[in-house]
Structures are given as structure tokens and as C-alpha cells.
């Protein structure tokens, strides 16, 4: 049977993550970003920016139901906002770069934290775990995040750059959407991706309050309700569009 093969060492424990180099004073931003708690805070802040975009994007696109003229006018207005102090499409490009920055910070932080977590538990449990609190959404954040990121790339190719395979004309937003969503495999891709986004928002929309430290016994119940409500509104709004087009209700 088991024998004592070696005496326990006086100190087994060793830090698993490298320490910052001593002596050199690092710039505040580098120092701040070095912490996992700060990375989660940044993920919450960028998450809020992205949620703002997702919500506005959905509300804007619902003009699909008000007809071709309404949607195309709205698309044209997006290019004009900020005029005359900013040039045409000026504010649009500022917003695009802000969103791109938010996406990069959100994804890079997530990737770095995932690596940190893998190092913190290199040996998994050998017997099955019995999770008591973790939800499907919280356990699949990485996968739903990857699905949404890949979808966003296709979505840009499809309806912004016009290289998604459907007939596409710049400025003819309504017709471009109809052309794209009429292909039922593509409609399914849009629907599945938005369901993944909903699952991501169900956890993220709650988790961000914890990461930001917004915890108050008076309002804590509202945090989960907010996440459920937000995820539901976004999913229903976004899924309805490909569904209505592919079923021929909108054409």
C-alpha cells in the first residue's frame, strides 16, 4: 500500500503567476491593467459600452418593420449625426473606433484571465464535480463570446462590406437585409448567434455589477432581473428580423 515516499517539504507553496519586475516604476495604466480585478472592471466597463451598442443597433434596425423608406433614412441619418461640427460620418467613425477598442480590451482581458485561471488549476478534479451555483450561461461565457465574435465578423462582411454572398448595394439597407435573410441557412446563423448573445448577456448583464462593485442589499435583486430583461429584449428584437424575413412576413 501507500508508503511515505518523501517527507513533506517545509514550504510547498510557490506563486503560480509571475511577479512584476521590482525596482522599475511602471506607468499607471500598466500597473492598473496588471491586476485581474482591474481587468474584470475593464471587462465590465467595455461590456456596458458593447451592451449600449447592441441595444441601439437593435432599436435602429427594428425600423425594418416600418418599411424601406424608414430604415434607409435612418441609415443615412447615422452618417449625418454630428454635422456640422463634425464632417459627414465623423461621429460614426469615432463610435466605430470606440467600439473596436472596447471589443479588443474585452477579448484580450478575457483571454489573459482564462490563461491565468488555467495556471491556477492545472490539475482538474479526477471525480466529477457537482456544481451547485454555476449556471449554463456562466460556464459557457468563453464559448458564447467566441460565437458572437465570429458572427460579428460575418455580419460585417454580409451587410457592411457586402461580401457575404448575397446581392448587396451600398445605401440600399432594406433590400440588402431582405436579400441576405431570405437565404434560410444564413437566417439560422443569425438566429443561433443571437441566442448565444442572449446567453452571454444573461451572465454578463448580472456579473458586471459584481465586477464594478455595485452591490447594495436594496437593489441586488434587480441586478438579475436587469440581466434577464435586457437579454430577452435584445434576443427577441434581433431574432425576430431574420425570422420574419425568412418566413416571408417581411419582404
Amino acid at each position, binding site marked *: 500500500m501507500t508508503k511515505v515516499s518523501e517527507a*513533506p517539504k517545509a514550504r510547498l*507553496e510557490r506563486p503560480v503567476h509571475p511577479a512584476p519586475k521590482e525596482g522599475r516604476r511602471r506607468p499607471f495604466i500598466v500597473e492598473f491593467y496588471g491586476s485581474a480585478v482591474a481587468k474584470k472592471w475593464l471587462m465590465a466597463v467595455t461590456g456596458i459600452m458593447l451592451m449600449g451598442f447592441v441595444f441601439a443597433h437593435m432599436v435602429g434596425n427594428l425600423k425594418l418593420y416600418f418599411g424601406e423608406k424608414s430604415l434607409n433614412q435612418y441609415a443615412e441619418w447615422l452618417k449625418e449625426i454630428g454635422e456640422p461640427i463634425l464632417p459627414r460620418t465623423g461621429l460614426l467613425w469615432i463610435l466605430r473606433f470606440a467600439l473596436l477598442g472596447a471589443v479588443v480590451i474585452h477579448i484580450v482581458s478575457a483571454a489573459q484571465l482564462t490563461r491565468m485561471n488555467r495556471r491556477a488549476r492545472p490539475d482538474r*478534479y479526477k471525480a466529477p464535480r457537482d456544481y*451547485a451555483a454555476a449556471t449554463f450561461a456562466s460556464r459557457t461565457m468563453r464559448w458564447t463570446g467566441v460565437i458572437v465574435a465570429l458572427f460579428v465578423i460575418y455580419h460585417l462582411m454580409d451587410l457592411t462590406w457586402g461580401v457575404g454572398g448575397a446581392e448587396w448595394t451600398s445605401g440600399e439597407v432594406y433590400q440588402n437585409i431582405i436579400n441576405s435573410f431570405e437565404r434560410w441557412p444564413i437566417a439560422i446563423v443569425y438566429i443561433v448567434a443571437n441566442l448565444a448573445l442572449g446567453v452571454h448577456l444573461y451572465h454578463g448583464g448580472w456579473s458586471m455589477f459584481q465586477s464594478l462593485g455595485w*452591490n447594495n442589499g436594496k437593489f441586488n435583486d434587480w441586478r438579475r432581473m436587469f440581466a434577464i430583461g435586457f437579454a430577452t429584449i435584445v434576443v427577441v428584437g434581433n431574432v425576430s428580423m431574420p425570422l420574419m424575413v425568412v418566413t416571408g412576413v417581411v419582404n
Partner: protein
Amino acid sequence: MKVTLTVWRQPGPSATGRFETYEVDEVSEDMSFLELFDVLNDRLIGKGEEPVAFDHDCREGICGSCSMMINGRPHGPELGTATCQLHMRKFQDGAKITVEPWRAASFPIVRDLVVDRSAFDRIVESGGYITAPTGSAPDGNLILIPKAVADSAMDAAQCIGCGACVAACPNGAANLFTAAKIMHLNLLPQGQPERWERVTNMVQTMERYFGSCTNHGECQTACPKEISIDFIALMNRDYIKAQFKQRRLASQRG
């Protein structure tokens, strides 16, 4: 009653371990889970076999020594219960029970079910104290503390440092432990002078040993003292504030 135990056996820190199965009969349902291991070990010694090494001390749920992953949950299936206070009546007769040590890079296995939790000491050393003048004890209630504050600080101070939060966390994070150790001081007036230093140093020490929080909430369910993840949010808030705080104004109120 009779149970079938599948226990992780590992002779030393760098030895390879494996599960061994033991049938234990004539188990009283009034036994604690640790007493089950006492019985098993008595019988193993009787047969000339090596007993199972496991951590235990007070056996009344306040020392934080016991550390068993029972059927995939730290301290077993009961809420708010350490392994020592888990009784065999909570299991069915003939139950199959799998027992594993905590698993985390910073909780290396010493032997069988014993892990080295010194990393927690490193975190507490880096700020889990207040600097107080020595001398005669001050009169009671010289510093007034609102009831809600005292209650909350006591909730955090219940932490016994068992490591169930790390064991339960899918990321191997120690945020619940560290938050409890920071916030029971940061909530109280006595903790204010070192508040920003404490949260910065303890969080940064924690992050050298453990993973990061993704708000699953497994830790608070596993905690034998039922410490809430509310404290993690308060720790995050204090940490971010501390990074932007102008320290020389730290004594100003408001």
C-alpha cells in the same frame, strides 16, 4: 449502515495518486464524516495498511482544517457545514462516496487528502491586520460603530480559511477568502487608516497565487460559514477606488 468510499491516495507531493475503494460497514449514522475516516483508518492499521492522511483539528466547525471534496462538492452536499459537522445520516445506506483533496496550483497535495494552504497565509501577511497601539485596553464603545456595519464585518470575519471557496471555484480563485479577510477590517473604523494599502496589497498577493473571479457563485454555496459574494463586490469596489485614490488625502472624510 454501510458505505463504499472511493478515496484519493497519494503518498507524497510529487508522487502519482489514484483512487482506492474501501467498503466500510457498521457505520453509525450519528458519526461525523471525519469519524468515518477514523473508523476506516483503525481498520486499515489493523490490517497493516497505511491509514488515509486527512486534515482535522477542532471538529466543531471553527478551525478550518478539514478539507475534503465529497462527491464533487467541498465539505459535501450540506449547505453551511464543514466536513467535521457533516453526519453520516445525511447519506443513504449503501451510498457510494468519492473523496478527493482540494485541487489548486497553490494548494499542493502533501499527502492523500492533505493540502498545503500556506498561500492563504501569504495573503493575510500582506495586510490582514490593523496597526494598533499597545498598552492598556481602551474603554469599550469609545469608537461607535453602526449596528449594520458591525453585523456585516462579523459576517466576513466568520471565515475560517478552510479553502473551500478555492476548491469550489471553477477558476481556482481565492476572491471570497481574500474579500472576507479584507472587508472585515475595511468595513470597520479601526481598519480605515490602512484601508487602501490593505486592499491593494492583499489583492495583488492573491493574484500571484490564484485564479480570477468570473462570478459563478460556487464559492458562497460551498462556504461552511455561508459568506456572501457581496464581499467580493465590495472588495472590487475598494480595490478600484484604491488605485485612483490620492493617498495623502486618505484621512479626509467626504
